[in-house]
């Protein structure tokens, strides 16, 4: 499966420390919230990229292996936790499975790569940036439970849906970052 990234960085054949040195530089060119795919062959890069990402506050999403090449996915920190959430209709993580079993869908508005490395089974993926152009994939008569990592992007998405005439929209809080239930993910 192809995972979508905003930028790619070729570190194949490079030994430690170069994958991290180059990733650090490349990350400066990536916009907040965007995904960088790092292609590497050094096995040590898995643990190091993860630890480095955590130390500088980026979101390490995961790694898959393709034809002997490690593909690491990192999302640039977007500091999106602090902003105020204004969409009024909300439900909690704990409620959503029960609610959706009675009808409606869970709409995950995180980036595709974030979704690939861990999402609620059966949820639909439309990244926030694509929502406007993909509204026709959604049904106005259905309940739509919008979720993201921390509730900020889903707040924005819920407001956008509401503006477009969707009435049965809820923001799921606190979001995937503290999701305790089952998740599905791409094979790593």
């Amino acid at each position, binding site marked *: 499966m192809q995972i979508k990234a905003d930028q790619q960085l070729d570190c194949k054949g490079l030994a*430690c*420390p*170069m994958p991290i*040195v180059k990733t650090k530089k490349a990350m400066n060119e990536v916009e907040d919230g965007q995904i960088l795919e790092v292609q590497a062959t050094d096995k040590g890069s898995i*643990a*190091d990229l993860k*630890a*480095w990402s955590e130390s500088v506050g980026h979101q390490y999403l995961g790694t898959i292996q393709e034809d002997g090449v490690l593909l690491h996915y990192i999302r640039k920190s977007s500091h999106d936790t602090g902003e105020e959430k204004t969409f009024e209709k909300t439900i909690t993580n704990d409620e959503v499975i029960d609610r959706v079993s009675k009808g409606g869908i869970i709409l995950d508005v995180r980036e595709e790569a974030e979704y690939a490395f861990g999402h609620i089974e059966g949820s639909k993926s439309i990244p926030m940036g694509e929502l406007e152009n993909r509204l026709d994939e959604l049904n106005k008569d259905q309940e739509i439970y919008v979720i993201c990592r921390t509730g900020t992007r889903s707040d924005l998405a819920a407001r956008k849906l509401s503006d477009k005439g969707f009435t049965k929209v809820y923001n799921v809080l606190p979001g995937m970052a503290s999701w305790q239930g089952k998740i599905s993910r791409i094979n790593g």
Partner: protein
Amino acid sequence: MTINKMTAAQVARKVIEKQPLFILDVRNTDAYEDWKIEGQNFEYLNIPYFELLDGVDEILPKLPSNQDVLVVCAKEGSSKMIAEMLSDAGRDVFYLEGGMKSWSSYLEPIKVGDLTGGGELYQFVRLGKGCLSYMVISEGEAAVIDAVRFTDIFTNFAKEKNAEIKYVFDTHLHADHISGGRHIAEATGATYYLPPKDADEVVFEYMPLEDDVTVKVGASQIEVGALYSPGHTIGSTSFIVDSKYLLTGDILFIDSIGRPDLAGLAEDWVGDLRETLYHRYRELAEDLIVLPAHFMIIQELNEDGTVAKRLGDLFAQNHGLNIESEEEFRHTVTDNLPPQPNAYQQIRQVNMGKVTPDQDEQIEMEIGPNRCAVR
């Protein structure tokens, strides 16, 4: 300022001679906490290299100027980069050639003692992993016991000593490191012995190593005799060399005893372990010098770097030999066991000959401490 490299052999001398050394370990914190270069007079600072990419100024005050500073990483690249940055900042430092990878594979051969008729017994101390291998040499012949996977070290050492390797033994099917035994035997034409009870699933030819099997090395007939001593594995066998040394494999260590769970049968084998340690070994001469297949902590090294102690002293001092109640013994060796060694199940498969990983995969499997004991 200059940057210099330090070899694993040089670090080994510092460990054995208890010299001071300041180690700046730039690996991940997890990797460092799991496993590092141990020395009794070593000091440490662990900061991952990726936290120093913007500069090393913040750590300069933490580095001593009156002793050697060694920068260490997994494979060398990052330690070299950090050493260069420190050098640019005006500090003289070393980096470890080949990183932890070479430390894990370095063996220091140390003579344990003389044998009857001019023979010699050597212990190969793998400081980075705590593995101990042995070579008995007598008048042009040699026997190797519990060889680790660096077969050249043993074959070259025998060559230097003008000895032909005639016998190769593994005290048991190892789970913490990849054995070199079978490959040494193949390369030299020696006979390879393995306990049949550990060898159910092995896919190669071997001679059964059973109770009372003896071989004689060299013209002066140094005797290497097998003593069935199950408990770490069901086949675990000890050796008595020249009526003087007791090679205990992973059954009895200097400051701990073998764990019975690595082949998955702790409950079944705890009784065997107790029988071996509390009865079979008790019948042996207390003046035998115990030579185990591992050490766990650096304090177990003697002044000359060997790991060896009188059996009688172990009966007096080793906690694992002094648990009176069987119930408490059972509890000690089956509950609260330390984490199992890295990739131990895969390593067993390799030692059975079922899988043949490449060099890099072998290194990967053996990363980390050995963890074969319970204290």
